[in-house]
């Protein structure tokens, strides 16, 4: 359900469309030492996330592959640019903040956070059925970093 007055073009901002068309780090990472596959069985979206983590826990490189809607793909692309160079711990905190923003549990304009450019996805919270699209790559990253499961599903 969406609030009336919200417009599709608020959700599909230029930057998001541009990331969808030209996703960053859209590659299989040969040097990866962490990997996970994330699937949304309800819509068939699916992304593989490859991470190369150094001994001190820094994300040195990251890549992703897969297919999905504009929201899920742009989110995955933007995610890779935002977590590269961060520590595992910081990346996971960012995932939490991102998820909270979309669930309406964190107000990105009044509360402290580290989301930076990621706030451009705040429009997704008007579209509860699309929140899973936006968080799919993040859940996959978490699974890769924690090494608990090589395959995750939103359901």
């Amino acid at each position, binding site marked *: 359900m969406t609030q009336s007055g919200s417009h599709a073009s608020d959700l599909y901002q230029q930057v998001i469309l541009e990331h969808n068309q030209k996703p960053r780090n859209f590659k299989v990472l040969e040097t990866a030492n962490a990997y996970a596959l994330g699937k949304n069985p309800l819509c068939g979206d699916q992304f593989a996330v490859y991470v190369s983590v150094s001994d001190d826990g820094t994300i040195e490189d990251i890549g992703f592959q897969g297919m999905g809607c*504009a929201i899920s793909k742009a989110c995955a692309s933007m995610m890779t640019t935002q977590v590269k160079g961060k520590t595992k711990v910081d990346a996971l905190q960012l995932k939490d903040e991102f998820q909270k923003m979309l669930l309406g549990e964190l107000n990105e304009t009044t509360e402290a956070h580290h989301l930076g450019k990621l706030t451009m996805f705040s429009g997704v919270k008007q579209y509860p059925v699309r929140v899973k699209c936006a968080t799919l790559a993040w859940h996959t990253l978490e699974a890769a970093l924690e090494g608990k499961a090589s395959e995750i599903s939103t359901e």
Partner: protein
Amino acid sequence: MSLSKEMKPVAVDLVEAVQMSATPQPIVSPLSEAEVRSIRADFPVLSQQVNGYPLVYLDNGATTQKPQAVIDRMTRFYSEEYGTVRRGVYALSAKATEAFDQVRSQVAQFLNAASEKEIVFTRGTTEAINLVAFSLGNVLLKPGDQVLISGLEHHANIVPWQEACARTGATLVVIPVLDDGSLDQTVFEGLLSPQTKILALTHVSNALGTVNPVAEMIERAHAVGAVVLIDGAQGAPHMSVDVQALDCDFYAFSSHKVYGPTGVGVLYGKYNLLEQMPPYQTGGDMILSVTFEKTTFAKPPARFEAGTPAIAEVIGLGAALDYVTSVGLDRIALTEEKLRQEATDALSGLPGLRMIGTASQKSAVLSFYLDYAHPHDIGTILDQSGVAVRAGHHCAQPVMQRFGVPATARASFSFYNTSDEITRLVSAIGEVRRIFTGSV
């Protein structure tokens, strides 16, 4: 009517036909604009605004909206007539039982079944298919046998058979789908053999709209001795169905897709088959007598209706069938065919649009893919303009795999939809194009 080969003006033929036929049939026509307007007024949901626009509801393949008559009938039943069925000796229960049983006869008439004893109430199409797959599947299937399904099936007509095969050692065999979304009849005939014990086939594909030539296929399957189940979830709401003319052994449909309430569906089964089948679920209402040593099961249909049924929903289904019968299934089919042609023409010309499912026999289901936007993004943007379509795999993942797409956007029509709504759909797709490609 004479089959004279002479060229004659059609009108003359019709006049002759009317004069010659003992009971003159009225000429069936699609609903007029005025009739559709008055029908739309019967559906309260249709008059609402979504995101600031009048709702355009094009997800009728998933579920249909409810006319006031159905809502009122259920409300009246709950406020004035409610009681349990088949159990109470008091007036309220007797009356509820009578109303409930009356719907069974009504459904029998709706499908032209030989007897109301051939009508089993289930929770829906899914439960009806599971019932047959368990009850008949378990006694009929042996290792080496085959269950034939088609590449167009909804998951509800795939998974129960996969499971039945896993339990019994039978093999699942699939009739392939051609590029236009119709079934490969040549391969079908080649697949039939004495090992074919069951053919489970959809009447109409929910994902593509293809209408299968079920009568011919049933005849061919019977010729090798197979039992045939038709998944009528997308058939019964859109055309008149005559199970005796089709000669199918089972036919299943869901109330919620025929303008009735959720939670109830129908399994039609030939009585001689139902009679030989063991119960699917057990408990109250389906027994003749119970001792701790032995239970005797009731005859069909009660044998297959364990527990208190969805009483009010069955009553609501009765009102829904009254409604569609009063509009007329033949007129519904013609009206929807007109909408299908109009919408197909309107959408086919749009740049970057690929129509999936172009069989010559189709119901008013348009499944499409845009080369510039994912179906979910289409769904979200259309919704912003008040246009509700389904985006996804439509519970038919093998169909999506067959056509090499992850999902499609699907507009599925009902006789209450209008030409204006097709225009709204087209302009909403234009908005998707504007957002994604910048062009208008």
